């Protein structure tokens, strides 16, 4: 089982992946939405997507929307540098929206556990 991490900033992406791997998960890295789609096509065992919000060309939200339109219903966790507001949190199809800060380690761990439990 793999978690796909999508982030245009290599450092942030690698840190997120390192957090997840330290929590016992296997990760794949993509630096933009197109690469994420390629990874999803190439690996059939991706069970969860963790994506940055602000990326050039195709944002995290646009990636989520695109996947849902393609009938891809994998759990999706969004990461943002700003404080997520209520509207963003309630985006349809979104399992969690977390802030990229020093508390991400704990928040992401809890969100991943909860999301995977809900989605079997």
């Amino acid at each position, binding site marked *: 089982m793999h978690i796909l991490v999508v982030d245009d*900033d*290599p*450092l*942030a992406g*690698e*840190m997120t992946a*390192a*957090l997840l791997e*330290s*929590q016992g998960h296997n990760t794949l890295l993509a*630096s933009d939405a197109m*690469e994420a789609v*390629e990874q999803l096509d*190439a690996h059939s065992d991706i069970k969860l997507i963790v994506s940055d919000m*602000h990326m*050039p060309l195709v944002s995290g939200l646009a990636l989520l929307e695109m996947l849902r339109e393609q009938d891809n219903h994998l759990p999706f966790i969004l990461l943002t*540098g700003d404080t997520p507001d209520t509207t963003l949190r309630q985006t349809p199809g979104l399992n969690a929206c977390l802030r*990229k*800060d*020093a508390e*991400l*380690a704990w928040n992401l*761990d809890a969100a991943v556990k909860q999301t995977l439990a809900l989605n079997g």
Partner: protein
Amino acid sequence: MALDIRRFIQRFVEEAADHLPRLREGVSALEQGHADREQINELFRAAHTLKGSSRMLKLVPITALAHSTEELLSALRDGTLTATPTVTSLLSQAVDGLADFVSRLAEGATGDDLPAADEALCNALEAAALGQLPPLPITSAEAMPSSAPALPSSSTPPSSAALVTESELRLSDTVRVRLDRLDDVIRLMGEVLSSHHHLHTLVDQARELSTTLPAEQQGPFHAFHRELKDSVLSHDSLMSDLHDRALQMRMLPLSVAFDPLAHMSRELAQSLGKQVDCRVRGSEIELDRQMIDRLSDPLIHLLRNALDHGLELPAERQAAGKPPRGQLIIEAWQDADWVVVEMRDDGAGISLEAVRQKALAKQLVSEEQLLALSEQETLELIFLPGFSTKSMITDFSGRGVGMDVVKRTVVDELNGDLQLASERGSGTRFTLRLPLSLAMMRVLLVSVGGVNLGVTAPYVSELVECSSQAFIDAAGQRTLILRNEFVPVVSLAQLLELPETSSGTDTTLLLVVHQRHQKLALIIDSLIDERDMIIKPLPAHLRYLPLVSGMVSMGRNALVSLLHVPALLEATRHGTQRANEERASAALAKRILVVDDSLNTREIEKDVLEAWGYHVTLAENGRDGLAKALAEPFDAVLTDVEMPVMDGFALTARLRENEVYRYRPIIIITSREKEADRRRGIEVGADAYIVKGSFDQNNLVETLQALLG
């Protein structure tokens, strides 16, 4: 959950080293009024990335300052604010502040060690974003110097509003100096050093003069002489120190060359439809400004080749099982008195077959020559003028003519070395080895035919004194057996068309010079001196001389030419080839495989055998020899013993196991002359065992003729 934060902080510092220069350039463009919308977007993204990364790493002051900077840039991007001098001044201060924080991290500080962000500056930035500019500028804009600064300015922490009065009175820690003034200082220091050396001569003359004085005056004169000598010696120390510091003032970090490369790589990759991560390491290493100026073009060319020829398209990479994003690493480190710069990629590597075909098509080498080349020698054909393997010509790498220029720049202009390694499917690596500075080097002064000449120390392998009886003849070329290696011997006087001076004694003094694998023993008359000397470049009207690379002054008025060792090696090789062609005959067509890890030895044995009509293929170690022997049949094999990867004994044993070579002649040529080694050679199946000390070409050829019938 315990992540190693330090590793990520180091990554953050490396990424900031990409973003900060871009921010500086962008602010500069804003200041000059020609920043377009996309450039402001780029500035915003850089600030945004710094903010996001620093927040994840708990680098609180950086997050705060980056956030405020981002707010101001956002207003500029939205068009609700225009870039007035006050705005660009605030941005400059913000970038300086960020750079200061990053410098502290690079020096080992952790997030907790960072001082708090300048609240006044953050407030001013965010107020400016809302259109509330402060009534007075916090600091006046610094006037731009007319020429590029020779010294990088150290960043000073941003001043707060409460300290405005105090900061206005504080002088800057740095002074910008025009480059030509620094060059003047360095040139004057060179002159002072040369003049100072003359004082040593005066001290010696004074000592000799004392012997002619009457006895009653020698006492006072000795006191005078001792004081003069002590004074000159103490000035030695001062001069040396002053000159070192003068040269250091002209040293710059390699980041001035590397940072533009990293930026350029992303732009080029995007234009080519490729994906690349470019990593820069060791950019804090310092080099002389002259070196860096001349280094930029070769590095740019290598970069273009890596992106155009080396890295594959994302689809090709995935088909090969690689990540779609390619890796390009530019790294520098110090190695004694040298700086090593390496550029490597994880692309397709160089196709040896493509190189061979292009070399044949361009008639750079013949088919027979190709067969004799090792894999490494085949790779290095790309350095020949006019070579290009790109199937389609693109804007970025042109026709590939630059690779020979790259090599010529590194070797001839920078007195360095350029090495290439490539593995098909895995990537390519270029390694440049450069002296710290071109201004001063250790020089050996020698005398030949009544003329004094200099050779820079990096090219000198050793000095050898021996009898002329020690030379052997190999295909008309005098040769010295130096430990396990054959080294061609050439009279330097003859090479330079100077008069030969025959010495009364039988001993000969040889200066052995080298460049990478090649060695050459030069017959000289005497060694005069060896010391650090100021190297002066040739004036324009003398630069046509291929064998001279510069001048040094000796004593007060005498100038000495520095020999250009790569050109000497090239001239010697041409001479050898000409002599060799005259002796070639087509009487015999037997094929011989020569296996030796020494390039010089391989070349000499090949010359000997080809002069007698044999067709020769070369191999550089036992495994290479085994692969070539199994790839095609040879009539005989000549092999050295001590070689890396597989030695001559193992090679012989393996060949005897093969049906084709069970009874083929195998001759071992080695410097090992113990009976046990000879017996072992026979045991593994060698037909003949020739000790290099007793080597001469007639013996070798007679042995071959006896064995081949």
